[in-house]
């Protein structure tokens, strides 16, 4: 990455899209678009003369080398080891609603399990008429469903409970992704196994070195859960649970057990470590909420944002963002330029799907004055995304999970953007 030598580029903008290109653009104001004049009109650029690589030289494609900064990143101080840690989706570089497989955030408790599908088994037992053990190939013989859903870690934005801390929506909101899953309806398998009348809960368990286990109520299991083996058309990536994972639409990511190996039907919840010591929301009175599964409606402006500053100066400006709700579809999104005092309806573009990311835009003529940019979603249940102050009033600041408060980006006159709190 070239040196940030423009006064308009602070070291804070290190992750700006194609920062090398951007910096040289700004360093050479005489050029209309920056870059190398030898490759620009009226000259014939080198790639228009010499032959490029042939087919299958890149048998599995990857993004242009000029997009190499569009990657998952982690926050090293967050955790003790990288095997039990999290990486973040670069939301500020993405558009639409689908997350590319290689950019879906990761959360592992015992590292990525590299599983030979020939050896993987899914076992269903407990309070069922017919216990089952299945190979991946057998699972693929069951009727398939395709569903697009977001998956959000309950701790997404958890570092921001006490105030603005991280500069970049990759870090404040990047524990989310949205892909199309293909797999088998969990209901289909439970019917095949025949759940007994006293079967009220499922224990779902992974095959990695953490063998994470969680309790799932039977109502949700029979409603819309999927055992998925494909994401965005191809096999699950190992870091997303290859060869199979659970999909629990609208509910916190921790329930979406990866490397799924076992489903046990029981009559009570198990109160595993993940649903007692973790994923319980501590309130100011010392009590903690448990079984807070669903993810409340939330939104964030992905650009401009700290890693995606405005580089063009004043003029026509596109605000792009994401909205979602674990309780259904997005109904509307509003955008504020003055920290929540006044709001304007955003334009939603692309599909509005149940429990999926929804893309919104707000286009306006920026006069170059500083902005306090916010977005606010309302879902189809009528739930309106609260301000951080409203949320803290009820939950305090020690909940860790389910921080869905309205995010504020301070856009400065020079186009730089900072994560701030307002009151």
């Amino acid at each position: 990455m070239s040196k940030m030598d423009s006064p308009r580029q602070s070291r804070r903008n290190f992750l700006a899209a194609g920062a090398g290109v951007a910096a040289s653009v700004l360093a050479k104001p005489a050029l209309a678009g920056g870059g190398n004049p030898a490759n620009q009109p009226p000259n014939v650029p080198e790639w228009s003369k010499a032959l490029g690589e042939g087919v299958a030289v890149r048998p599995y494609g990857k993004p242009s080398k000029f997009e190499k900064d569009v990657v998952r990143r982690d926050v090293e101080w967050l955790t003790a080891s990288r095997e039990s840690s999290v990486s973040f989706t670069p939301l500020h570089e993405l558009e639409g609603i689908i997350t590319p497989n290689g950019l879906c955030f990761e959360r592992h408790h015992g590292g990525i399990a590299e599983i030979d599908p020939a050896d993987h088994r899914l076992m269903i037992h407990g309070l069922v008429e017919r216990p089952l053990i299945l190979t991946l190939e057998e699972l693929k013989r069951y009727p398939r469903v395709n569903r697009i859903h977001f998956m959000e870690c309950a701790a997404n934005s958890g570092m921001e409970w006490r105030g603005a801390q991280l500069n970049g929506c990759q870090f404040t909101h990047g524990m989310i992704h949205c892909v199309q899953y293909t797999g088998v309806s969990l209901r289909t398998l439970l019917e095949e196994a025949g759940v007994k009348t006293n079967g009220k809960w499922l224990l779902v368990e992974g095959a990695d070195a953490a063998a994470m286990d969680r309790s799932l109520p039977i109502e949700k299991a029979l409603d819309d859960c999927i055992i998925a083996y494909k994401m965005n058309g191809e096999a699950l990536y190992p870091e997303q649970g290859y060869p199979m994972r659970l999909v629990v639409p609208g509910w916190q990511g921790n329930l979406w057990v990866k490397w799924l190996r076992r489903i046990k039907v029981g009559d009570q919840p198990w109160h595993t470590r993940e649903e007692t010591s973790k994923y319980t929301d501590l309130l100011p009175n010392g009590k903690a909420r448990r079984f807070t599964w669903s993810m409340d409606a939330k939104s964030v402006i992905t650009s401009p944002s700290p890693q995606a500053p405005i580089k063009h100066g004043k003029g026509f400006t596109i605000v792009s963002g994401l909205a979602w709700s674990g309780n259904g579809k997005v109904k509307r999104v509003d955008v504020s330029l003055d920290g929540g005092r006044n709001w304007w309806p955003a334009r939603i573009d692309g599909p509005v799907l149940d429990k999926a990311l929804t893309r919104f835009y707000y286009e306006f003529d920026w006069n170059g004055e500083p902005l306090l940019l916010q977005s606010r979603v309302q879902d189809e249940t009528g739930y309106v995304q609260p301000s951080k102050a409203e949320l803290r009033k009820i939950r305090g600041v020690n909940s860790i999970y389910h921080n869905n408060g309205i995010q504020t980006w301070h856009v400065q006159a020079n186009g730089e953007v900072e994560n701030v709190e307002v009151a």
Partner: protein
Amino acid sequence: MVRSRMSKSLKFIAGALVACALAAPSLAQQKTDVKAGPRYHIGRAPTADEIRGWDIDVRPDGQGLPEGKGSVAQGEKLFMDNCSTCHGEFGEGNGRWPVLAGGKGSLTSDNPVKTVGSYWPYASTVFDYVRHAMPYGNAESFSVDEYYALVAYVLYLNDVITDQNFELSNKNFTTIKMPNEQGFVMDDRAATEKSFWQKDPCMKDCIAPVKITARAAAIDVTPEDSKDKKSRGVE
């Protein structure tokens, strides 16, 4: 679950019909028979041995506890050899590794310390978790007796067990009560956060003009920044 009103034998017949339909070129018949719960006869029943190998979960009521026993003293040795590097000799935690003991009375403070003793509602959770995932990097490698011993020691570190000679077993396990068992409430967002559901969200002059009150730049912990990292942390 939508359960068929048909008798078991009728269900069986329906299942058999579905199986025939699957073998036939058309699947139309299966689609009309959803209420009976179509069966596909794909996969097999696991053997008792296969289930036994993976069936390692434990519930608060003791369901799933394997036969075995281990003492606090035995657990202490195992803990020192296998766990203390990360968790500290007294469960105080090293670096960012989890703190296992202490933290009593901290849940209403500005810095709640959530440990087995201060936070976890059930002792079964310790057994379930430790046997699933510990020792870190060599999971499920201890014997059942060793897991009992380790759990006994962790409970001892938390003053839940006070006798150093105590031997924890599947027979006495459910007598263990944890201090914070009553510290949990069910998800009550629909009631306590009712005000978040609104018909028409405010659009104009909703609040007084705002000012910036805090900045992420002042905290300065965003990755790839060269300055010293001060963190507020999150688990």
